[in-house]
């Protein structure tokens, strides 16, 4: 009786150890992948901003809190701006931080636009932060961020 108990205990421990190793092996590549991903979107942000520091706020990202289908997630991005000849939004850069290709789009406006707002639909590979950076004619930047939870990822990944 005791013998059976012991062997069961060992096998349970062996199983526990084995599964820890499996988890470690499985998480390692994912962690590396996540790191690459971070670099990709960070590089993109750097490309947009250069040495400038964006001011948070004035950029509104309207998106569903939970997107059931990552293939088509509706969004409305708008910037609080008078859109006059002197004071307008030149562009809005949209970045999906955890997509295989984080660049979503760049939308360019003119004072003729009247309102710095755009509506479209994006693909989201998984739950992530969306960043919108607004570029002003004087070289300043504004930014906004929003987290979207994705049930089924898009991007055909």
């Amino acid at each position, binding site marked *: 009786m005791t013998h059976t108990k012991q062997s069961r205990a060992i096998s349970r421990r062996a199983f526990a150890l084995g599964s820890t190793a499996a988890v470690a092996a499985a998480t390692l590549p994912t962690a590396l992948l996540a790191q690459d991903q971070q670099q990709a979107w960070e590089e993109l942000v750097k490309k947009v901003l250069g040495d400038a520091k964006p001011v948070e706020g004035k950029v509104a990202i309207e998106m569903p809190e939970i997107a059931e289908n990552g*293939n088509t997630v509706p969004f409305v991005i708008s910037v609080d701006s008078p859109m006059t000849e002197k004071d307008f939004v030149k562009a809005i850069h949209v970045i999906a931080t955890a997509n295989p290709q984080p660049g979503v789009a760049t939308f360019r406006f003119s004072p003729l636009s009247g309102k710095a707002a*755009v*509506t479209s639909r994006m693909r989201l590979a998984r739950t992530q932060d969306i960043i919108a950076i607004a570029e002003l004619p004087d070289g300043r930047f504004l930014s906004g961020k929003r987290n979207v939870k994705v049930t089924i990822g898009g*991007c055909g990944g």
Partner: protein
Amino acid sequence: MTTRPRIKLPDSAKVGDLIEIKTLISHLMETGQRKSADGKTIPRHIINTFTATYAGAEVFRAELHPGISANPFIAFHMKVPGPGEFEFTWIDDAGTKVVERTKLNVV
């Protein structure tokens, strides 16, 4: 891009009005990330540029990346400067260009 794009404008507008312009075009927007059944990567094929001009002046432009969904829907605004015609242009990776012209009914 075989079917004609769809454009939605207000029925009429006055000078100075802020109007919304809605556009929709059929396109697969192939991301370049997917693989076919035989394991080969399906090459990227997306609409990369969309522009809208009114009476010859650029109102709005979009540089699209694979993160934009298939059949891109894009809506934007314009403050009506006077009577005129819109010209919308979509260009994809194959160089295919679709141009659509629509008059705005300015009253």
